[in-house]
């Protein structure tokens, strides 16, 4: 399914014209042919009979993390970029609203180790305000008691701010108030936002390396070989 078309001889220099259908036997830089391939051949892959230029792959991966689909827009894969942007951000926003806009926050305090945030942060910029809010909360925490000071005033009306400290595992606090108010929505919202972050990890991989291969089962391979005997002699196309 996915083939890297990049194995060019080392003697080929950047910008040298290269025939598309005769890449591996290209004799040297003296030929002048009409099709010019980019210098960085590792960025070119062939998927579904299409050539895809992944361009600067680390940059594409970073952009894909920062904004879901951003890496694909950078690579000119606009349809997939739009698909990812809509699917992931919509999932994220549905979850965020289901949980009363309190399900995404960063905290690693006794009684409130919010490990969910590591997955939620997979959507990139959308989750970053939580870090700013946590930093502000830490500055307004009494170091002797571990309690949030009375003069604490969260930014942006409390958007993605962590709960007031301390958070108890067996007593009432702000987290238990959120649970009581939003019920199952709080739980579902946490799941939705975590799944959105996880999905974006797949998208980051897609921006960096292109689509994943589809495993071909032994039974299907035998069927294909029975119908197309030439397949048995060719290398794997998985």
């Amino acid at each position, binding site marked *: 399914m996915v083939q890297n078309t990049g194995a060019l001889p080392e003697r080929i220099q950047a910008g040298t014209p290269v025939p598309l259908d005769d890449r591996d036997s290209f004799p040297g830089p003296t030929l002048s042919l009409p099709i010019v391939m980019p210098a960085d051949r590792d960025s070119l892959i062939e998927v579904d009979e299409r050539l895809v230029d992944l361009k600067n792959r680390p940059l594409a991966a970073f952009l894909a993390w920062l904004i879901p689909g951003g890496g694909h827009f950078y690579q000119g894969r606009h349809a997939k970029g739009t698909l990812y942007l809509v699917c992931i951000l919509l999932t994220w926003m549905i979850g965020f609203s289901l949980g009363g806009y309190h399900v995404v926050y960063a905290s690693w305090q006794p009684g409130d180790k919010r490990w969910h945030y590591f997955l939620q942060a997979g959507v990139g910029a959308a989750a970053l305000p939580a870090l700013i809010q946590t930093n502000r909360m830490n500055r307004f925490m009494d170091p002797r008691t571990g309690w949030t000071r009375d003069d604490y005033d969260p930014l942006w009306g409390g958007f993605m701010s962590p709960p007031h400290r301390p958070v108890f595992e067996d007593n009432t606090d702000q987290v238990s108030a959120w649970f009581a108010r939003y019920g199952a929505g709080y739980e579902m919202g946490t799941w939705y936002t975590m799944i959105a972050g996880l999905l974006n990890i*797949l998208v980051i991989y897609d921006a960096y390396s292109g689509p994943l291969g589809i495993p071909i089962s032994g039974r299907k391979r035998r069927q294909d070989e029975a119908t197309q005997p030439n397949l048995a002699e060719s290398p794997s196309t998985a």
Partner: protein
Amino acid sequence: MLSISSTYLLYYIPLVVAISLVYGGTRHEDMRLVVTHAFYTAYWITAFMGIIFAILWMMGRFV
């Protein structure tokens, strides 16, 4: 039969749509193949969850 309201099952719909489309997108470049793969993934997820539901339902009823 269910210990929760059946409206909770509606949460499943946007989730399976998003997961299927993104998963299909990470396997293909052609959008028609993406959609085809997404349908297959949604079908597979639904069937898998249906089987788990049936097992749990039978355990709750007969065990």
